[in-house]
């Protein structure tokens, strides 16, 4: 009998951690995982699941994390009305896997997103209303989702925040914005040496950008918004300063996943990817948000989406004080627009 007891204890330890827990309430916080093609992707659902309305963050990167969007402000101003789903994509944030590089590509991630939505509906009811919000690279991923087959019928609305749906066009617009604004800033005698370096680079690299040129333009774009005092500076150090210990962030996992994904070979394929030509298929209500000082994904990308989608139920708005992270740099503006959009389409 004594020999059996350890095995009985081990059995209960192994099985008890897998028990399904689904909470319908107004102040929920629960984590579960989607296992798909050699990746186990973390999903954190917080807020008001009783509302049956879900806002799904599709983060940037590739390889960033949804942990960064889970701020106190969003908890207090969106999660109190609706449930927010923080999804870590494959090879990102708190997601796990072994050697899974063969599955790290946009078509696979589009299928992952579809399964995430199917899983949310399975857990919280098929009548749940889901809104997807793509930020930065998440804009490309959600554009891929919205234009594939009839996938858009799974969601009630598409929110496109500082996103990119067309990487070649993105490079062209980033260069144009850096050049135009840079020349103005030099005339105004603001950060002259930094802007001069950027303007010189843009003058010497005029189009048909290589992958390396694209990376360099993005680096300059990241720097550019920091030259404006009205823009709240957001970098990795700022995000990690949000007290990751208190919120249980897997910091080393986030950093190693980010480093791997940002340097993975599929970024070269993404650099040639565009969805402008397919956006006419989109008939779902759409909200487009961007920051005036976003050089990484300039606002003219949102204008391109706005002009090409077929739905007449669309709105485009600009934050006058934000750069590339509108949900962190202009929180009240972001929450107000998102809440109004969801409320009128849920």
């Amino acid at each position, binding site marked *: 009998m004594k020999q059996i007891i350890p095995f009985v204890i081990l059995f209960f330890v*192994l*099985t008890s*951690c*897998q*028990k*399904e*827990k689904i909470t319908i309430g107004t102040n929920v916080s*629960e*984590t*579960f*995982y*989607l*296992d*798909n093609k050699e*990746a*186990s992707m*973390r999903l954190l659902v917080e807020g008001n699941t009783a509302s049956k309305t879900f806002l799904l963050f599709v983060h940037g990167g590739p390889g960033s994390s949804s942990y960064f969007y889970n701020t106190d402000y969003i908890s207090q101003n969106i999660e109190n009305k609706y449930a927010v789903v923080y999804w870590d994509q*494959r*090879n990102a944030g708190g*997601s*796990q*896997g*072994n*050697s*899974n*590089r063969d599955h*790290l590509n946009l078509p696979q991630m589009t299928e992952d997103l579809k*399964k995430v939505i*199917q*899983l949310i509906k*399975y857990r919280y009811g098929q009548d749940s209303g889901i809104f997807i919000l793509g930020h930065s690279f998440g804009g490309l991923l959600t554009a891929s989702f919205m234009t594939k087959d009839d996938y858009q019928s799974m969601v009630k609305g598409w929110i496109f925040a500082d996103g990119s749906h067309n990487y070649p066009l993105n490079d062209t617009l980033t260069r144009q914005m850096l050049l135009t604004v840079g020349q103005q800033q030099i005339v105004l005698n603001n950060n002259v040496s930094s802007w001069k370096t950027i303007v010189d680079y843009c003058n010497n690299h005029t189009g048909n950008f290589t992958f390396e040129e694209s990376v360099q333009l993005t680096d300059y774009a990241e720097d550019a918004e920091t030259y404006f005092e009205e823009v709240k500076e957001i970098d990795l150090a700022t995000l990690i300063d949000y007290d990751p210990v208190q919120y249980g962030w897997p910091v*080393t*996992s986030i950093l*190693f*996943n980010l*480093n*791997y994904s940002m340097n993975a070979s599929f970024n070269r394929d993404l650099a040639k990817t565009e969805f402008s030509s397919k956006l006419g298929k989109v008939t779902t209500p759409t909200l487009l948000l961007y920051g005036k000082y976003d050089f990484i994904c300039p606002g003219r990308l949102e204008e391109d989406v706005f002009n090409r989608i077929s739905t007449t139920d669309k709105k485009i708005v600009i934050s006058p004080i934000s750069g590339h992270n509108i949900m962190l740099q202009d929180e009240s503006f972001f929450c107000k627009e998102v809440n109004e959009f969801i409320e009128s389409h849920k």
Partner: protein
Amino acid sequence: MRRIKSNGFLTEFSPEVGLSRTFLGGTTYQVDDNGNVSIKKCAGYYYVLFSVGGGIGYDFSKTERKPFSIFSKFNVLMMFPYNSTIYLRPVMEIGLIYKPINFLSLKVKSKSRKK
């Protein structure tokens, strides 16, 4: 590898190789191509694990004939292949070791060096 000096101070260095099995911290689902959802039991991953650690402490049995030691140790765990890359995890240990007087005493191999 632990070295205990005659005055009771100890130092420790511990390189380790092992196998790690993680268990995901929540229910894990699979969704097939038809949208059918199932639960994956005992979801997690096996990783090769390397660990390097070092620490210091004090063995009270050397000077005060008390059967315990205190120690502090810092380890770095490295697991791979973790999402096709590696995963590093720092671990800090602070502990107390109690050694019952006759427990496995015959199996302990000790070397002592006198100055």
